[in-house]
């Protein structure tokens, strides 16, 4: 197990280096002169030269990349072209909001998905099963930005039960929870649908297996078969799908933040892409991709703990 973790950590290190290089190069190769973007269209050539000198844009590319790596290791992501604010500061102030949204949606999706999937499997072909299968099929296809817009239309505009947007109050207050409900549903629906489908099919497979039949034959109680024998084995593919889906959840966060006007990392990124604010784009993309690969590593390790048959050669 420790060998596996060390090996995966090394892979992670190289993957992070690769990501940082790819992100750096794509911003470097992007058309448009950063000096021109900062100084504006009226700047003189000597001004531009001074800015290039200041940002180190005159140095060879590889030197610039190594400089860049050095500074991000010290937590320095440069300054925004638009606001001149420190990028790390902008990220730090917005990051908790994004984490709050992603966590709430993930918890919602896992609870709903596993419960719905298990009930469907235990009561196969009942009306509960048919309706949950139908809803989850729709949930996978529904565009989350549209779902969010429709939820706002129904609950905020027409019924006026919940706020239209924003995510500024602490989550443990009534106002905070009210703000969180619609964005969490918007972001969590697709994941919940996916988890439901996976939980249902893997539970069905397990309860039809020989060892469950044996357990039933020797008189083990029904709920003990479900919760002790079947659940653990049925959860393995479910955890995989949760891990795989985490990437879409992160991508979805970016979109959901835009729908509900939530000032998180996603909105920062969208604004920066539209304004060609490269330091901010670089930092936010790097951060999201970094979180994604780290979470994947954690999922792999959990996977190995749950299923001792997996050894990762």
């Amino acid at each position, binding site marked *: 197990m420790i060998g596996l973790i060390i090996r995966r950590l090394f892979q992670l290190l190289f993957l992070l280096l690769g*990501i940082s290089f*790819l992100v750096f190069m794509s911003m470097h190769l*992007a*058309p448009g002169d950063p000096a021109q973007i900062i100084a504006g269209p009226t700047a003189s050539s000597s001004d531009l030269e001074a800015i290039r000198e200041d940002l180190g844009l005159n140095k060879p590319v590889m030197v610039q990349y190594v400089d860049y790596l050095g500074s991000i290791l010290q937590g320095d992501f440069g300054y925004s072209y638009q606001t001149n604010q420190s990028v790390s500061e902008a990220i730090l102030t917005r990051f908790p909001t994004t984490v709050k949204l992603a966590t709430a949606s993930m918890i919602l999706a896992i609870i709903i998905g596993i419960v719905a999937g298990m009930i469907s499997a235990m009561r196969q072909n009942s009306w509960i099963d048919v309706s949950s299968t139908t809803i989850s*099929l729709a949930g996978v296809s529904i565009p989350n930005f549209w779902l969010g817009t*429709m939820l706002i239309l129904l609950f905020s505009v027409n019924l006026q039960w919940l706020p239209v947007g924003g995510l500024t109050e602490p989550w443990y207050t009534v106002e905070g929870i009210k703000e969180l409900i619609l964005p969490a549903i918007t972001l969590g629906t697709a994941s919940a649908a996916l988890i439901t489908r996976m939980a249902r099919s893997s539970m069905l497979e397990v309860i039809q297996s020989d060892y469950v039949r044996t357990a039933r034959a020797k008189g083990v109680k029904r709920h003990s078969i479900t919760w002790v024998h079947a659940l653990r084995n049925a959860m393995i593919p479910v955890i995989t799908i949760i891990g795989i889906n985490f990437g879409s959840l992160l*991508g979805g966060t*970016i979109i959901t933040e835009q729908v509900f006007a939530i000032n998180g990392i996603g909105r920062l990124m969208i604004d920066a892409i539209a304004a060609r604010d490269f330091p901010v784009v670089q930092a936010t993309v790097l951060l999201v991709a970094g979180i994604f690969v780290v979470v994947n590593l954690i999922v792999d390790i959990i996977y190995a703990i749950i299923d001792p048959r997996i050894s990762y050669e």
Partner: protein
Amino acid sequence: MATNVAASEDVKKSTNKEKNTIVVVKRILKNKLAVIGLIIIFILFIMAIFAPVLQTQDPYQQSLTEAELGIGEQGYILGTDNYGRDIWSRMVHGARISLVVGITSVSIGLIGGVLLGLLAGYYKKLDGIIMRVVDLLFAFPGILLAMLIIAMLGTSLVNVVIAISIWSIPGCARIVRGSVLSIKKQEYIMAMRAVGASNIRILFKHILPNCTAPVIVYATMRMATTILSTSALSFLGLGAQPPTPEWGAMIAAGQDFMWSAPHMSIIPGIAIMLTVFAFNVVGDGLRDALDPNMELSDN
């Protein structure tokens, strides 16, 4: 004599192929959801191909005196938007944009992915480097890779096509490589090599045709993702720009008029959902129908 044998072999081959196709089609037609999906896709294609005929008005033509009309009002089938543009005509042209973007970027992604997958699976020397690049592209979650590429190239619908094409490559490459790895160990490939067939001939004439099933399933599912992502990017303002009648951009425009004209964002959303649903269920159906492990008792 020899030619006769060859000819009869050819006939056998083609009838076998036809039989397989019939089996696959029969299986899909038994899957109710897939049939519904196929009907939706058929309607979409009709809308896209005959958009100029089906439109009741120029999709860009504004008429401020007839702005924000509801569904069916004053002869507008789906009402009008805040500029008085006919939503039905814009929807029809939106179908065209979605399908063109989807088909173009999935095709480019497939060409890149299939080539890389074939090379990686067949040549051991290239495998390491190609798969490391693929792993690297997989390190970007969901839509983020597309966003990075758009950040680099600038916001436009053409750049969305480029971005989504590149994003489609790694998944396809992985699938093709997996198939090639298992196919190239089979005896008939070794036999081809023994009789001196060139690598290119083996790759394209003997290995590639045997990887088509998973690639077709991937392409169908990918159409769903592509159409969804295109509209998401346009919704975010990173893809099609107004006044282009793209479904995602139409939802974004409708957001500001939710109080007075909610149908502006409801209608395009339903269209996107049905389209994505259709490609997903057809992809599911194809996967089941093309699976050689499924019982053949149904023919």
